[in-house]
């Protein structure tokens, strides 16, 4: 009997583990007036010294958004959001312009990121990652910029890109995720405040992992960032994204848009470790993470690979997708989504096969504990012209506890008879037999659960770049604290 009870205790412990990034940094914020109207958008645009085309685009998006209705189809429940009761622009106050060198950054901010384990000082070269740190609505620092620019790589904040490289921005922004795409994409297009911009020129293999670290700090704000990555012919980039937020009782909205464009022979690898504040044990507070992420394999032989580790957010609602337009292009999606307490996740991917000989692979691992609900929702669509398209999808769910739910909603649409599409899904709990097997060999139940969860997610974790794999494993360990040695 003891055997049976123990795992439940561990799940309890798991439920009680704390969110380690929940501190608030005491810095002054510059806020836009609360609420959302055309003036707010003009305020944001003016604040950023944006060219005229940007403001017009924002306004168009805003007018479109006003006519839209919030979608209800996801398998998540939340009280209605009052879009007028939030700040749409919050920036840490600092000396008039962006600091010239990293030393000029407000030490308080720097300490924040150090606390989060994000090196902003270039002395820490060993880390070997170029970081764009975004706090609330604005990018506060970008490291290794010079080194990258020697190779012709543009890596900067979105606002800087709009000012310095308006042609590139104008050409690509909204080309993958138009503002008409969905409710939250329209909202983001209207009010996005910053984000990262990255352009890899022809034939360049980016030598560093590029990274953005998102931090929500101010209260009652929504964070709306926009990331745009363009990989020109034959180039390669690996991009990492991480996020945290302080503990608050209120729900904060995070509605980001990420667009990836891979030209001929280019490859983009996009990894996310999402650890927004998930709310407390009673399900109070936490971030609403409603994100639109989409990449297009524009040219032949291009490749886009999404990897995500989702442990945070009260509600996650996102589907990193690939449009496989170029012939022989490849799309990949690897995901681990762990939900606990009252967290809800409705996540998955879309693979749109348009070109010939396109391939896609989906590996999704869902782990639900506590009273959480974890859904996989994915679409594999094969168009009429996508000869010899190939897809393999695998979605596995692991249930820890009897009050959580795991759901799978795969959509498969095939219009071409040369395509091969396979989908498999399983749902199970950690079986007593496996635990017994481990116990029998002297592994405690606690260790065994850690072992099994790690093994369960390994296929995805292995896809992460080295530096991130460590962080991701640490994250899973925090969420499973008490069960991992």
């Amino acid at each position, binding site marked *: 009997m003891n055997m049976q009870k123990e795992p439940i205790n561990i799940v309890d412990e798991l439920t009680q583990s704390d969110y380690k990034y929940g501190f608030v940094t005491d810095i002054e914020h510059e806020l836009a007036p609360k609420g959302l109207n055309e003036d707010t958008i003009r305020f944001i645009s003016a604040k950023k010294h944006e060219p005229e085309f940007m403001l017009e685009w924002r306004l168009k998006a805003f007018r479109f958004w006003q006519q839209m209705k919030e979608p209800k*189809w996801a398998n998540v429940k939340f009280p209605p959001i009052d879009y007028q009761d939030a700040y749409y622009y919050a920036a840490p106050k600092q000396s008039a312009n962006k600091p010239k060198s990293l030393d000029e950054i407000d030490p308080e901010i720097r300490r924040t990121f150090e606390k989060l384990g994000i090196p902003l000082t270039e002395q820490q070269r060993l880390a070997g990652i170029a970081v764009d740190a975004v706090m609330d609505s604005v990018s506060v620092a970008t490291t290794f910029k010079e080194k990258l620019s020697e190779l012709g790589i543009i890596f900067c904040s979105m606002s800087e890109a709009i000012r310095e490289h308006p042609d590139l921005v104008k050409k690509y922004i909204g080309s993958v995720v138009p503002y008409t795409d969905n409710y939250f994409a329209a909202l983001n297009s209207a009010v996005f405040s910053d984000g990262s911009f990255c352009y890899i020129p022809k034939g360049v293999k980016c030598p560093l992992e590029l990274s953005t670290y998102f931090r929500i700090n101010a209260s009652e704000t929504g964070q709306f960032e926009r990331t745009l990555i363009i990989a020109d012919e034959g180039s390669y980039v690996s991009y990492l994204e991480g996020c945290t937020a302080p503990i608050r009782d209120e729900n904060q909205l995070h509605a980001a848009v990420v667009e990836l464009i891979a030209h001929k022979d280019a490859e983009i690898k996009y990894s996310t470790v999402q650890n927004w504040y998930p709310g407390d044990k009673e399900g109070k507070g936490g971030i609403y993470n409603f994100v639109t992420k989409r990449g297009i394999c524009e040219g032949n032989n291009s490749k886009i690979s999404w990897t995500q580790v989702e442990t945070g957010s009260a509600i996650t609602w996102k589907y990193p997708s690939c449009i496989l337009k170029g012939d022989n292009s490849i799309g990949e999606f690897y995901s681990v989504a762990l939900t606990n307490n009252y967290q809800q996740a409705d996540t998955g991917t879309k693979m749109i096969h348009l070109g010939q000989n396109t391939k896609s692979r989906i590996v999704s691992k869902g782990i639900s504990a506590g009273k959480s609900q974890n859904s996989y929702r994915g679409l594999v669509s*094969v168009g*009429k012209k996508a000869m010899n398209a190939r897809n393999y999808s695998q979605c596995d*769910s692991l*249930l*820890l*506890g*009897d*009050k*959580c*739910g*795991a*759901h*799978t*909603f*795969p*959509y*498969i*649409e*095939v*219009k*071409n*008879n*040369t*395509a*091969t*599409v*396979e*989908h*498999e*899904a*399983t*749902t*199970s*709990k950690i079986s007593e037999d496996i635990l017994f097997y481990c116990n029998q060999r002297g592994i405690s139940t606690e260790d065994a659960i850690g072992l099994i969860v790690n093994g369960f997610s390994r296929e995805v974790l292995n896809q992460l770049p080295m530096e991130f794999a460590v962080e991701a494993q640490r994250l899973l360990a925090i969420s499973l604290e008490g069960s991992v040695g």
Partner: protein
Amino acid sequence: MAIKEKITDYFDKYAQSLNGEKNSYLFSLRKKSIKNFQELGIPTLKNEEWKYTKLNFLNNIDFEISHSSIEGLPNNINISDYFIDNFEGDILVFINGFFEEKYSRIIENKGKIIISSLNDAKIKHSDTIEMYLTKYTDENSNPFTALNTALANDGAVLIIPSNFDSEVPIHLLNINLPLDFNLLTNTRNLVIFEKNATAQLIETSYSIGEMASFHNSVTEIYLKENSELHYNKFQNDSQKSYYIGSTQIHQEKNSRLFSTTISLGGKFIRNNLNSILDGEQSEAHFNGLYFIGNEDFIDNHTLVDHAKPYCDSKENYKGIIDDKATAVFNGKIMVRQKAQKTNAYQSNKNILLSEEATINTKPQLEIFADDVKCSHGATSGYLDKDAIFYFRSRGIDENTAQSYLLNSFSSDIIESVRNNALRDLIKTKVAKKLSMNDLYFCSILESNKI
């Protein structure tokens, strides 16, 4: 007039024509249902349950609602042509949605089980109707079920008594005769299996005539403790036929359901098959084969609702889609929080034979219990080139190789049909579709005997 208004109009006239029946239980159900239907309206593609199912025909074709039984058959029509060859069992014939005793054949089970038409049962078995009708059906979410409840004139009421055990099947045969105008019929069947009862049920629907026919059928089945049902639907209809059929099954403890749905043709087919496993140790087996061409459309929606622990469900649907046909599969496994120790398996495999064929498949798992084993799989592809090469290297031409492969692909589903006569009929029709030569066809019939 749009279909919705037409139906409302029809219902109002029908209500006025009633005298004593207005206070009946059935009429109160009908009133509720017509209201549901009006509120729900005809679903659009935005409705998740109808996402891939275009119901344009309801707007493009002007249907008349069938309101009375026929006065006589045209000379060139012989109802027994639609009987299954060599079928030994009872046949209940419905023409234009009305029970026709003189064309039916009720011999074997006569006196042993209660076989009645809904029209008769309204009076003779009103208590049964009050107890069961619409108890678990999706009246509130599916407008066609609501429409059926509101308008169904007739249907079969079968009560299988306790401990009844028979290999003699009951065949419900609906024939629509849209001779002069496009016809809409609604039939409603109610089947109750008492404790330990075992029986077989077959449903088919045909339309004969130049005009279009829309048959909207609902079957409610109640399986009491330890009962067993073998349920087959066979669909092989004309290019003028539109069919929406829902079967709602409620299973009690230890009950067993074996369902096989075979669809070989029809302009538009939507099959809803839902079973609630509402007693421990109950089992549901759903098998399906759709093999369609032309511009046919088939949509299979299934739901296995595990409400109690220790239940098993197994679902296996296969599709072969040719020409410009489109197939949809939407299978859901729901495991409620109480339903621990559930085993559920679901598979949907598809082969597209032509460049213009389409498959949309959506296998779903919704799981709220932790101690379960659930899995599902879906595939879509073309015949294995290596396998065809293997045949060809042994002197078998490509077409024959394809026939062999498709035959073996579909055989496990066809074999799950319990009744021999029906199974042979299906084999003949499938063989014909595969344009197999006689010799080969003989060999499959032969192997079947062994």
